[in-house]
């Protein structure tokens, strides 16, 4: 049940024909894990907390560094050297006391995620390197938890979602195979323009809200490419390409054995 105060707080989204009170209740009941509280995790978590997502788990092992403040907009100068998850939780809880926030001061890996993902409705991948992206992909796939993956470097961003509640979903490895070597460059080595993280991180929160309330996603099985230099946004569909593991899975599950996939659209 939505209280009178909540009805006021969330009035501008409850009145949207695509949302309504039922959508607000779905947001309140949702458990979402945000992995990485850097340049993408900050805006994504800010908008999820503001929208009333009931339970947020923030995962990051880092402390706030002076070089973060140019783009990681939850952190202020007096937060230097404090754990990011602790500062972020304080800020988000102050913005919205009506939600539950859990912090995990840890660098997630596949084992860590596999142990904890049961019962989550969604994972946001806001991390900064290829290794952890593939670990998140494998763990979400194994646990049947949808994932929305965002990334930004320089002036370029990418956003793609996989709904592992469905049988036959493609995965991140179908798009970018696990390479032997890490591709060159992250924000630390190649730089990044702050507001591009705001654009892509906010778009990630938008897709998250849509997934949680059952609206169709623009990034499902589709790589959204953002080029901040030209303010261009393009959509590239994954199509029928599947990685070896997805092909195997698909061969193993005969139509009779498939449970009904829950789709987001």
């Amino acid at each position, binding site marked *: 049940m939505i209280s009178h105060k909540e009805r006021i707080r969330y009035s501008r989204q409850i009145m949207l024909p695509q949302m309504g009170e039922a959508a607000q209740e779905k947001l309140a009941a949702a458990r979402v894990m945000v992995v990485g509280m850097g340049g993408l995790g900050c805006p994504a978590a800010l908008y999820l907390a503001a929208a009333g997502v009931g339970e947020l788990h923030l995962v990051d092992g880092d402390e706030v560094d002076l070089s973060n403040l140019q783009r990681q907009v939850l952190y202020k100068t007096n937060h230097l050297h404090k754990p990011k998850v602790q500062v972020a939780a304080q800020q988000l809880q102050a913005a919205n006391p009506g939600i539950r926030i859990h912090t995990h001061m840890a660098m997630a890996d596949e084992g860590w995620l596999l142990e904890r993902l049961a019962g989550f409705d969604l994972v946001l991948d806001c991390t900064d390197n290829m290794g952890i992206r593939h670990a998140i992909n494998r763990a979400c796939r194994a646990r049947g938890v949808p994932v929305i993956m965002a990334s930004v470097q320089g002036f370029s961003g990418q956003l793609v979602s996989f709904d592992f509640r469905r049988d036959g979903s493609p995965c991140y490895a179908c798009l970018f195979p696990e390479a032997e070597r890490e591709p060159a460059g992250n924000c630390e080595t190649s730089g990044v323009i702050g507001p591009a993280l705001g654009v892509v991180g906010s778009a990630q929160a938008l897709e998250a809200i849509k997934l949680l309330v059952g609206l169709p996603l623009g990034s499902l099985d589709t790589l959204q*490419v953002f080029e901040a230099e030209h303010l261009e946004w*393009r959509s590239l569909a994954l199509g029928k390409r599947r990685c070896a593991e997805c092909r195997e899975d698909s061969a193993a599950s005969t139509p009779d054995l498939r449970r009904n996939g829950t789709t987001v659209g």
Partner: protein
Amino acid sequence: MIKVLFFARLRQQLGMGELRLEDFSGTVRSLCAVLCERYPQWREHLDDDAIRVAVNQELADSDASVAAGDEVAFFPPVTGG
């Protein structure tokens, strides 16, 4: 004519975001070969396992065919955040 687009770090590396090619017909692989012949300095950037290709906004293999009117996009993974 085909339209060739480059995304993310390829734009800086190749110094170009878009080009148009007259009279090409062949596979993605042969398109790559034509581009690297015309711009030899592109080879190290395009001939990279991490680069993906989309033909008409859909991910394609290197033996996918490309013909007049098609749009071909080359893009690497972006992994920062």
